[in-house]
């Protein structure tokens, strides 16, 4: 069975190959002159080192019977809620998005007491808003942009 080390080694290999291909297509690839002034000299060194190490991780993964946990449904759910919040914070506004985030994330993670949940979410949102806007003078988008 393929283990997580093998998969991660393979993912890193694909990453370094992708980076090398991208570097090879850049306008300053193959430019003549001293290596100290070559913008790709150092990145290519890193790509080579990364490629070799990924290969070692992949081979070691294939040779060992390592048991590692896999991300489950709950992990993807948590990531989806957090990701939506981070990407929509500016558009949806701080108040609504933060309140919804706390309620949704805590409920999804197994917290099942509606009144304390709603009260804590409202209090946390308002206190954070006050700390950032009044104490730290950091502007936040209060409500959705219409």
């Amino acid at each position, binding site marked *: 069975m393929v283990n997580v080390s093998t998969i991660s080694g393979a993912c890193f290999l694909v990453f370094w190959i992708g980076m090398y291909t991208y570097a090879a297509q850049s306008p300053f690839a193959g430019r003549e002159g001293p290596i*100290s*002034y070559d913008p790709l000299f150092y990145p290519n060194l890193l790509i080579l080192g990364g490629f070799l190490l990924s290969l070692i991780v992949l081979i070691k993964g294939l040779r060992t019977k390592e048991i590692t946990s896999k991300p489950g449904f709950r*992990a993807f759910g948590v990531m989806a809620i957090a990701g939506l919040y981070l990407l929509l914070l500016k558009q949806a506004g701080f108040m609504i998005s*933060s309140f919804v985030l706390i309620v949704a994330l805590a*409920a999804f993670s197994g917290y099942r007491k509606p009144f304390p949940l709603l009260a*804590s*979410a409202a209090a946390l949102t308002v206190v954070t808003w006050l700390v950032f806007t009044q104490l730290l003078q950091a502007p936040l988008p209060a409500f959705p942009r219409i």
Partner: protein
Amino acid sequence: MSGLEVITSAAELLFSWQAIIALVGGTLLGVAIGVLPGLGPAVGVSLALPLTIGMEQIPAITMLLGIYAGSVYGGSVTAILINTPGTPSSAASCLDGYPMARKGLLGEALGYAAFASVFGGIVSTVILALSAPQLAEWALEFGPSEMFALAVFALTCIASVSTGSIAKGLLTGIFGLFLAVIGQDVFTGETRFNFGVFELSAGLSLVPILVGLFALSEVFTRLASPDIAEAVPDTPTNFRFPGVSAIKGIWVVLAKSSIIGTFLGILPGIGPTTASFVSYAEARRTSSKPETFGQGNPEGLVASETANNAVTGGALVPTLALGVPGDPITAILLGALVIKDIAPGPSLFIQHGDLVSALFMGLLLVNVILLPIAKYFAAIWRRVLMLPEPLMLSGVTMLIGVGVYTLNNSLLDMATVFTAGVVGYLLRLARFPLAPIIIGFVLGRMIEENLRMGLIVFDNDVSAFFLRPIPLTLYALSVVFVFWPLIAGMFQRRRARKQV
């Protein structure tokens, strides 16, 4: 400036009401973060970093130092109360701290832990103040080849001693170095690896990467597989500091553990967890009652807590004197210094002597105010431990979002923190260490600049990098660090064969 003028100027910088509020607030916040299991100093300092963006230099740095030292101490409270270390560095404190609490000595255990933490923190700060300027003065003579070798050595050490295999550590270190390549080339000004995204031309920001890697990935890990919470005992705290006669009985352990913690803190990658276990083992080895260790011997608790707090000062020695961080937390502090227009390294002590002195005094003050905080907030930490984890981590996610948003109001930063969170979570699952990514990212520019500057100086002769004594020694040490597990394994096999 004379020595006295430097100290007066430093005191003026430190004793402003903003700096004092930031210092006390940071220390309180740090202890609270340390008390919460899983949220260690790295998460605390990375979460607080965005808050410091609008602050002056000294309040911002003292707040982060307060969080750093406070959270290392906070971990011991959880270890003593519920036998679960609040931070990994307090794991050794469970061994004797929890049995003391079970024996009805909860207040005494908390008092010993606080006193030992403060003692270790103060001794290491004094060593930092005495040794860092000397190291910086010596390092002033370093050229590009020495600086390059030093950065490579630090990264190799951290990658080698991190959890997981060496290959995984080195791979994540190179990944961190590569992330630092994105953006403009330091020598020609040409944009590299921006993938057609204009915002990437300025490179990736440190804060979203480290908040994502350390804080957000921790939230994902904890919420994806929640632990069953330990019951918090409802016995009264009765906090009590050790008396004079008790201190007389532990002063040798205090002194030895402070030295062990500071020395191991100076070495890159070792960290407070190893320091506390080494110190615990040494205290047990030299104790007159080694059989009582693990059954509530205060010496064990003192050894662990003194050493892990002494690491804070030790880890700052290479960070301030050489600009080379020894662990993720000092890497974050280094990033904070850079954001505040303070360039750590040999010239820092010449250019900003008053500022460095203010930082030393700030770290001393953090340790001193830990004593009243430990005593008067002891009952509150029990309540903090009762917070439902899903609710607490949802709040942390909100703080991550808001903190990163307020940096630049940038969608790229938000995407970066999310991507770093997901990558960090997946790397944790595959048992890759995360610290080398941050160290690599922080050291990336320094490594490239010194490599290419050295090539220019040595007329593109790569061999010149290996012909000087300091770089040669550092490369040799790097090789030993990388291959040490293989060498040790070989010796073990040979010994086993001989025994057979």
